[in-house]
């Protein structure tokens, strides 16, 4: 049995309400003996949700707070006004050692800000990064994983070359630990594969990564390589990464939309789609990444996994598992050791 790990869940603020998060966390208490969950949110809603779902109460605790940050709220204002907002409280509980890492499917900005106000940056890291996995056409690692990791996707809008190098180290460590990929390839996202392509920060980061030990840097990649899965870890600033990530989501939605449109159109197509259904399920499984795990905020001494706002229970469960794995395999230490010594 691994050493027990406690994951704090910000139960409030996800698109599907507290019940979905509670269900996902409850499932975690059944799936693993070594993971404990700490549900932070409105006690009554949590208990109401728990009354509907099997769970192991020995591995579950509730920290009540009626306050939370809604999706539309401005993070700074909301956290200033609500010191007991569930997401901030979850971060504080992690900081206080009540839990080892946190998961939230609520307002991303509020999550990142809660970390920034509560956690410390690792020595050698100047800015945090939000990383996320997405499915690709390539499979990798021990688990034959179709996912690549991309960071930053929104935490640091104006990353410097130093930041990009740190992101590369953090992403590499995370892929190694979570994807069981012993030696993940790391690439910089640019507008050309040549080392000199891109804005100065990217060019400089390329030069520095080329000589950094411990990271298997494969150079620059282009946008086309993102869905192809050319690199296991894609490094970029938060502005570019955020646009890319949201675009991938949009494309996925659009493809599904088109398929639905085609479905309505013609009887013959309908028959065809019925026959194809198992195949489409498989494609959807690879395409519809929203249901897989979450996005880690890397760079702080404590880990925060940001699950998608639209996460259903299964995504929450997976986010919790990922968080627990990162903690039990000591992600923070691995990253600290990998950062360039200055």
């Amino acid at each position, binding site marked *: *049995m691994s050493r*027990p790990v*406690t994951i704090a869940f910000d139960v409030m603020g996800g698109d599907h309400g507290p019940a979905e998060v509670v269900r996902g966390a409850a*499932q975690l208490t*059944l*799936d693993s003996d070594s993971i*404990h969950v700490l549900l932070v949110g409105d*006690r*009554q809603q949590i*208990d109401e949700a*728990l*009354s*509907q*779902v*099997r*769970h*192991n*109460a*020995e*591995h*579950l*605790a*509730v*920290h*009540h*707070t009626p306050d939370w940050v809604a999706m539309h709220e401005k993070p700074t204002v909301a956290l200033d006004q609500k010191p007991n907002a569930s997401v901030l409280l979850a971060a504080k509980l992690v900081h206080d050692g*009540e839990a080892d890492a946190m998961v939230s499917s609520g307002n991303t900005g509020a999550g990142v800000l809660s970390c920034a106000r509560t956690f410390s940056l690792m020595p050698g890291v100047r800015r945090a990064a939000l990383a996320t996995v997405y499915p690709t056409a390539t499979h990798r690692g021990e688990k034959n994983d179709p996912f690549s990791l991309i960071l930053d996707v929104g935490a640091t809008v104006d990353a410097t070359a130093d930041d990009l190098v740190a992101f590369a180290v953090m992403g590499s460590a995370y892929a190694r630990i979570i994807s069981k990929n012993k030696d993940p390839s790391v690439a910089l996202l640019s507008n050309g594969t040549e080392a000199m392509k891109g804005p100065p920060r990217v060019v400089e980061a390329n030069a520095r990564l080329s000589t950094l030990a411990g990271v298997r840097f494969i150079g620059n990649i282009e946008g086309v390589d993102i869905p192809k899965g050319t690199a296991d870890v894609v490094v970029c600033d938060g502005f570019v990464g955020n646009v890319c990530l949201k675009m991938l989501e949009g494309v996925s939605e659009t493809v599904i939309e088109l398929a639905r449109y085609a479905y309505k159109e013609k009887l013959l197509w309908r028959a065809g789609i019925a026959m194809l259904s198992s195949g489409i399920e498989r494609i959807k499984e690879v395409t519809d990444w929203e249901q897989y795990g979450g996005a880690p905020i890397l760079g702080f001494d404590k880990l925060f996994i940001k699950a998608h706002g639209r996460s259903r229970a299964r995504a929450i469960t997976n986010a919790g598992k990922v968080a627990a794995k990162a903690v039990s395999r000591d992600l923070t230490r691995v990253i600290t050791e990998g950062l360039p010594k200055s």
Partner: protein
Amino acid sequence: MTTPTRIYRWDLDKTYLQTEFDTFRQLVKTAFQKAHEKKAVPGAAALIRELKAAGNTRLCIVSGSPTQMRTVLTEKLKLDGVEFDELVLKDNLRNLVRGRFKALRGQVGYKLPVLLESRARAPQDAEEVLFGDDAEADAFIYSLYADMIARRVSEPVVYQVLEAAEVYPDDITRIIEQWKTIPQADPVRRIFIMLDRLTPPAYFSKYGPRVVPIFNYFQAALVLLGDRHLSATQVLKVTIELVQTAGYNLLTLSNSFQDLARRGLPLADVAQSLTEALQGPAAMLQMVRPVPDIIAAFSKRVASLGAQPPAPPARDIDYLSLLDDARPRDKKRTRFE
């Protein structure tokens, strides 16, 4: 002694013993297990020992296991240091072969008369605490039994329930007659349901606050401390067994504590008693290490719940409408349902 006799009635499989017989293979294995191979649910033996330690108590065990297993079961209980007063086993082998009671008739028609017969022999003022599990209709049968003795349920309702449960007519007549010989009383203090299948505790709220679903016997011990069937020191002894033999720790214990608190069980006095017991000179308590943490952890868990809502009130139970709930589920539920 001024305290009345206390009767603790226990089911065996899944309540006292960790039994798996959902597959034929498990069933055969269970049937041929030696005494020392059988495993008790963590804390069950310690809890029974502590309950018995008060004296003037009776331990009555009713099991669906066949009479052929009396020897091995007796031996197992002896190994665990459990002294029982009654051990009722089922009179034929058929039930074993069928694996478990397939029909409600099998449960109601067997357990209810056994309980009534045992009660008929008991002192009229004897209090009872019953232990069952969520694998079968224990919550239903125990509650029906309690309410029959208390005459909170009418003869026509009992008749209808037994009929709906497909109990044979002459068995029904016998049960009703037996019941009438038992003087009216309200002896059942608690019905503990061990959540072997992790049925959500709220599922049992329809049976009222008398029924307390539990994830472990530490929770039962806490409730029994509040009910003054155990002392704080005895609770700690049960706890120590859980920590030492089943890997329980501060986290699981305080989570279990909070779980009860969230369900509205009044634990303030319990926490107070435990604190005092821990601060006492008894060196034995040092085994729960680190000592000061346990109370801090419990307090923190309770504090983190905010204001405590009132405990759920007692309620009348509508047995007819609960009959369906009480029917045994056919399969162990899978994890991802």
